[in-house]
């Protein structure tokens, strides 16, 4: 492992028709990191990932992926990257074994039989190699797809919403696997819009309407978002939640178990609201807390609804 970034792109831009779908995105993914790529639907995550691995030609910008130029060295990138598409895209009418074997041949692996057998064993699918891939459940399809793009032992994994529509148990299993791979030194870029996945990432970039709004180490994201948060518990939280939501200065009320986390970017305005509440209703316990990734994530995802269609965004 060297210290050159696994991915380093500058000004990446893609225009479809008259719509700028990805707008001057810079991104640096350190080697060995789990890098979370966050953004609402239609914000340009898939398009960005496709440009990074040479599947789409950027209309602007440049960069490197594993040290190879994304504009001119796509074949090299493809040989060293494992890309798992958003939609399950192995062959449903081929068996599990045939799919794995096909992918192994695409990368011209030596000892193909052995590699495929091992993949099947690791997946726990030894006995089911002859089952058609199309008949697998959602969670198994995702795991199969991940295994298929890992057989050639890529140094970089690009996972595009790998767990969309998968049940929570399968999602946890999937993330256990990602962390295992990360420990072995594989760099993982994963797009998601699940909070429980976002908080497992070492780095995070947030994109909306094709523009990157925030990025950095996960621990620094809350500060960059600039939220101030109070925690409150006590009786009748639902009424309190409704009452707080409409107050100026309160931008977000999120329930965590038996607590509410009340956040806003204007510290003074938020404090004023809370002081007022305390006076009015002594039964609640209020406490200032550090804003964590959870609050920051909810805040980010809430500020931009689905990005399909409308050009421009919150900034315009």
């Amino acid at each position: 492992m060297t210290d050159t970034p696994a991915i380093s792109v500058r000004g990446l831009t893609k225009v479809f028709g008259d719509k700028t779908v990805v707008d001057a995105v810079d991104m640096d993914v350190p080697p060995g990191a789990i890098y979370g790529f966050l953004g609402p639907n239609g914000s340009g995550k898939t398009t960005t990932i496709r440009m990074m691995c040479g599947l789409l030609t950027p209309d602007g910008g440049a960069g490197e992926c594993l040290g190879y130029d994304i504009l001119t060295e796509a074949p090299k990138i493809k040989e060293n990257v494992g890309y798992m598409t958003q939609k399950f895209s192995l062959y449903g009418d081929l068996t599990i074994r045939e799919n794995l074997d096909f992918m192994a041949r695409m990368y011209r692996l030596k000892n193909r039989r052995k590699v495929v057998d091992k993949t099947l064993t690791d997946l726990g699918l030894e006995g089911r190699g002859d089952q058609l891939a199309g008949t697998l459940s959602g969670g198994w399809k995702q795991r199969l797809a991940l295994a298929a793009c890992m057989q050639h032992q890529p140094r970089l994994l690009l996972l595009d919403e790998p767990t969309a529509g998968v049940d929570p148990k399968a999602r946890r299993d999937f993330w256990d696997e990602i962390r295992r791979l990360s420990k072995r030194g594989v760099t993982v870029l994963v797009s998601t819009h699940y909070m429980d996945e976002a908080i497992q990432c070492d780095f995070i970039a947030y994109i909306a309407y094709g523009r990157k709004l925030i990025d950095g180490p996960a621990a620094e994201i809350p500060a960059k978002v600039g939220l101030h948060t109070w925690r409150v518990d006590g009786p009748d939280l639902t009424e309190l939640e409704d009452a707080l939501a409409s107050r100026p200065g309160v931008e977000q009320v999120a329930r965590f178990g038996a607590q509410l986390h009340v956040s806003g970017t204007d510290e003074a305005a938020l404090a004023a609201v809370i002081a007022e509440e305390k006076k009015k209703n002594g039964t609640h316990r209020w406490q200032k807390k550090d804003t964590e990734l959870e609050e920051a994530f909810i805040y980010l995802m809430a500020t931009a609804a689905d990005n399909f269609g409308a050009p421009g965004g919150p900034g315009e």
Partner: protein
Amino acid sequence: MHLSLARFGAVLVKEFVQMRRDRMTFAMMIMIPIVQLFLFGFAINSDPHNLPTLVEMADESPTARAVLAGMETSDYFDFIGVVTGQEDGDRALRDGSANFVVVIPPGFERDVIRGLSPDILVAADASDPTAVGSAVSALGGIVEVAIKQTLEGPLAFAAGRPPPFSVSVHRQFNPEAETSINIVPGLLAIILAMTMVMITAVAIVREVERGTMETLLATPVRPFEVMVGKVLPYVLVGYVQTIVFLAGAGLVFGVPFIGSPLAFFVGFNIYIVVNLALGFLISTVVKTQMQAMQASFFLILPTILLSGFMFPFAGMPGWAQAIGAAMPATHFLRLVRKVMLKGADLADIAVDLRAMAIIGAVIVVVSMLRYRQTLD
């Protein structure tokens, strides 16, 4: 970057497996030639016989009867009744109950003997020219023979004079004018055009539609490996179709194959490749399997109409001939007819091969230019 035989083989094997699993499509590919062969060979007959015919007899003489008997034995005409005036005959033609009305003029036999060349009037329903055309053209000969046979014995002297009708129809290669012999070889061109183009276009677009193309493009596979690997299995389908078809044509319809098998084999392979390339080209234009099918159907219609399959090529206006000449089926159709029916060899079909090669080269170049190794 160099090509890899392993990757090419992987695409090939995958395609075969998928083809095998897709029983429905595979069965259809084999059934299409058989069904078409029987449809066109038996049901669709542009040289129909036993056409309903009415007679208006103003002369009941033996000679007149002999003419009618001759017409009836020819099989073209089926006498369904007698009319007594022009009005009845016209009505029958109009409402379609008869295709012909034959009018024997009064004093027909007497005039024949006197050498006055009496006129037998045949009113034909020409609204369907294909239906009545061959019967009409056969008429002259039939009547002539009938008159010769009748004018024997005491009337033999009249036979020496010029016959009242002098229509001579000379048909080379297919003296009985059996349409099936002419139409069946042409049908092979149409069937291959239809299935090969569609099956390739659909097979490729299916990958795009299902999202598997993205996975495929994200691997190091080269476009050439994908293209040839995906298309080659369908060449084999074309082989199977052709064998089934030729067997059926020979066994059921007695279509001869008198030319050079080598010439046929060469032409046939070029034709298949051109069609597969055309299917590939379509796949670079359309987005869904549905569109791929529509585009293939859109192409097949002019192929049927303008290739010379349905209508004689020489009879078409210049612009239609130009369109026809740009279609590979036109040239393969000529090639097959030449080889199967006229005994042509390689030298005889060189012109057709060249035309197909030129069309094929253009298609391959355009589709290579259009093919994207990215998802743009």
